[in-house]
Structure formats: C-alpha cells, structure tokens
C-alpha cells in the first residue's frame, strides 16, 4: 500500500508578483511503505519544495498530498501530527541545534509530540545509539561537538520522533569521505532495522546507487521518472540533458562492456562491480599463468 502519495501537486512561488515561478509542476507520485527512494535532480529542479510539501511545511498551491490515503491538509490545525509522521532532516541540520545538552536537543522532537520525560529520554537514547553518538557526548553542549558529530546529533533529533517516513535532504553534504560513509551506512542500517520508508535527496549518484531501491528524477519541477534504481541508471542518455550523470562505477563498467568485457549493463556500486570483475580476473589468470 502506498504510504505517501501526491496527486497533481503544484507549487508556485510569489503568486501575482513579477517574480512568479512554478517550482513544482503537477507531480503525481506514489511511494510504497518500507521503500528506500533516492531523489535526484539538478539544482532548482524542485526537489526541496517537493519534499517540504510532503510533510506539510509548505502548503501546495494546488493538488494533494496523501499520507496513508488521507489528505494532510484536510484539517490544517492538525498539520503538526503529519510532521511527526513524516520526519524531515534538512540540509546542514547541525544549524538547528540549540539546547544545553545534546540529549536535551534530541528530546526536543519527542517532547513536542507530548511524550513524557521518561519516554522522550528513552527515544532519545535509542536514536543516539542508531546514529552512534557515544554516551559521554550526550551530556555535552551541542556546540562542543565536531562537525560530523553535530550532524549525527541533528539527525538523531528527527529519528527520535520515530517517523513512519524519514526524508533526508543531502545528509552527507560537506562531510569528508569517511563521515559520508558513516552517515549513509547508519541511514541504511536504520532503514533495515525499523523497516520504515526513507527518502534520500542527494547530488551524489554514488550514494543513491548504493542505497536506493527506487529513484525519483526531478527536472524543471516535473517528476520525470520514478523507477527502480537500475532502470534509472541504465538510461544515462536521458539523465545527461538534465544535468545529471551516472555513478562513476556505472560509467566505468559501461565503458568496459563497450570494450568487450562480459559484464552486465548497469552496475550500481563498487561491491557489484567487484563481484563481476574478480571472477573475470581469476579466469584471465588461469588462461595466462603467471611466470
């Protein structure tokens, strides 16, 4: 069953002014429960506006957002409940930290949900475990943490609300390669463990290729495709005009295939590539024994 669905969703900025601009244009998509969906698109393609409509931060100009089949704007007064069900981690979320201690900051969301102190504490500790924040960090001021730790603390603040759908906007932006890997691995692990729905917006095709079941391609406010990752990345010629490229490993494997190596057409990540290349290498070594 679709957990999140949009029907002819549109958003226009600055209606009636000279700066009028359609950011999201008639988008109808459907996201299944438990899916990991990657969202890609060039800067200004409407990704950010779209995801902010999905949890009711922006009210659509026209069209509907359905959460579990219900229009989220049916009762505008209760929009906060939608925000607890559809958690949103913004770009550079570390700038939202404000409490005295990391733990209190993570508890901010659960307490807003109306949970008791004990429950909120329990949720916060669990979220901290998911994001691998060491217990001794929890009593520190969030401003004393390192960049990567701040980022994880901020993500924990959203995870602690235990949302059915978790949306992350470029969660790894500005981190070093190792920090990137850690965050992505934690998100993947969290997804696997909780079995909830995750939407990951990223400019890194490598990250999308590694994690996503399906990919939503946005371009000029339209939803161009919402297909299985492999299918999307097998269509490099369609992605290129939109300012998007294939994951590096996919391109390399394509080239190799063009050179006559018997590898499959669309390889999504390095692990898959290894599985294909290592046997070939072993075979070659057998044919030409080392001297």
């Amino acid at each position, binding site marked *: 069953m679709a957990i999140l669905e949009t029907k002819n969703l549109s958003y226009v900025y600055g209606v009636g002014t000279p700066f009028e601009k359609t950011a999201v244009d008639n988008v109808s998509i459907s996201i299944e429960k438990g899916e990991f969906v990657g969202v890609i698109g060039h800067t200004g393609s409407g990704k950010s506006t779209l995801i902010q409509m999905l949890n009711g*931060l922006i009210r659509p100009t026209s069209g509907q957002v359905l959460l579990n089949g219900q229009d989220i704007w049916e009762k505008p007064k209760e929009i*906060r409940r939608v*925000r607890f069900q559809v958690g949103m981690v913004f770009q550079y*979320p570390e*700038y*939202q930290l404000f409490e005295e201690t990391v733990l209190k900051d993570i508890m901010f969301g659960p307490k807003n*949900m109306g949970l008791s102190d004990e429950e909120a504490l329990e949720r916060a500790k669990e979220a901290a475990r998911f994001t691998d924040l060491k217990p001794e960090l929890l009593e520190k001021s969030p401003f004393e943490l390192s960049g990567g730790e701040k980022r994880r603390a901020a993500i924990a*603040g*959203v995870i602690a609300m235990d949302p059915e759908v978790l949306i992350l906007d470029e969660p790894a932006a500005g981190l070093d390669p190792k920090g990137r890997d850690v965050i992505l691995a934690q998100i993947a692990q969290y997804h696997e463990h909780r079995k909830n729905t995750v939407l990951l917006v990223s400019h890194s095709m490598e990250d999308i290729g590694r994690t996503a079941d399906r990919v939503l391609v946005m371009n000029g406010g339209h939803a161009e495709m919402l297909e299985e990752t492999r299918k999307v990345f097998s269509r490099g010629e369609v992605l290129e005009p939109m300012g998007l490229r294939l994951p590096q490993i996919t391109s390399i494997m394509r080239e190799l295939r063009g050179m006559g190596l018997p590898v499959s057409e669309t390889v999504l990540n390095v692990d898959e590539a290894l599985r294909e290349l290592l046997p070939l290498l072993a075979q070659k070594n057998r044919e030409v024994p080392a001297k």
Partner: protein
Amino acid sequence: MISDITMGQFFPGKSVVHRMDPRVKLCLTVFFIVMIFCAKNFVTMAITIAMCFAGIALSKVPMKLYMKSLKPILFIVAFTAILNLFYGTGEPLIAFGPVKITLNGILNSVMIAIRIVVLILISSILTFTTSPTQLTDAIERLLKPLGYLHIPVHEFAMMMTIALRFVPTLLEETEKIMAAQKARGADMESGGMIQRIRALIPVLIPLFVSAFRRAFDLATAMESRCYHGGDGRTKMKILKLGKIDLTTLISCVVFLGVFIVLNTVIPPIIR
C-alpha cells in the same frame, strides 16, 4: 512570510531615479521630509504630495510595492491620527464630557496621517531605487567632513554596509531554522504571549550562533584581503554628479523657493 516585507528593499532598475547620484537622492529625501512637515496650507501640502507622486512615477517601481511598504505602518498612522483628533483647540463640534472633537482636531489628524504616509513613500523611493552599497557610499561621502573631527566615518559606513548586506541573509536563515524546528514539531502559531516567546528560543539561539560564525568568517575574509580601514582606500565606482542630478537639483531649488513664498503668503490651515 518574512520575505514579504518590502520596506527598505532595493528594486534594481534603469529609471531616471535609479541613475541619479545617491548623494543627491539622499539630500532630496531629507529635504522633502522637512518640506512635508513645514507645509502649513493646502497649496504647499498639495505641491509636496504632487512632487512625491512625481518621484514615484519617475522611479518606474510598481505602485503595488509602494502600497505594500505602507501596510506595516497603517496601524501607526491610524493610531496617531485618532490620538490627534482629541487634541484640537477651539469650538467643539461634538463633546462627550471632557472629550471633545473640534474642527481643528480633525484637520490636524488628517494632516498628520498624510504627513506620515508621504514620509514613508518618500523614503521608499530612496530605498527602492538605491542599492544599500550606493546608499552607504553616499552617507560616507556626505559625512566625510566629520572625519576632520576624528569621527571614524568610514568605519561607520562599513558597519552599515555590512549590516544591510546581511539583513536578507539572516532573514533567509531565520526561515530555514524555523522550518527545521517546525519539522521537529515546534509550535509557533498558537499559545499565549509567554508561550510564543518561549517558542522563539529554538529559533533565536541557532540564529545567534550562525550570526557570530558569519561575523568571524567575514572578519577573516576581510583580513585575508588586507582590509585595514578607510585610509588610502580607493573606490571602484566614484560618485559623480551628472546632468540628471543638476537638473533635479535646480528644479528642486526653484520649487523650494515657490514653496517658501507660498507657505508664508497663504494663511495656514490650523491657527
């Protein structure tokens, strides 16, 4: 939302007013404000209003935006006008005990309302057509003589430029932080006064932190480019008085002459 505030915003354009020297615009603005408060009779009042609308028309900025800039002060206009209504002298038209409304009071409150509206419109012409950089440049140039009294004019101008430059940035940042806290269930739209103030803490603390961060970054960036204050600093765009400026200045001086004569000859509205 917050970004809807038009007062003090700059609208790039190529109109005559946009091309005028910012120093001239600044002086004329001050001069108009003095005029509107000195105007004592209908004729001089009408002249000033007419000149104000001429400026609006010449600026080629849509009238809608001027209207929008008036919106936030409508309350103040109404408030002062109503207050002035009860402070007239002379024969009362209506009286309820000690509270009386006189013809003088009505005229007075109408005049006050018009004055405030024109004041806002005139300053809007200036800010709509002059970029913040141009404006501070003009202030710096005009205040330069104060430098001889060891007043750090350049530093003040630089501070103003920076402050103005960061207004939109901080507004944008505020919106972002508010969205992020709302996504964590922060409730900023309901509750009483104290609750609403408390709800601002999660927005204000990150905002301050980021403002300080930006300040340090900016200081480092300025130092890396060897900024060391105003001494010996040259300008890329040197302000020069052009034809438009001279024409405007001369016509305004003529108007001023007419204004002074009429203001003294014709009897004032309020005695």
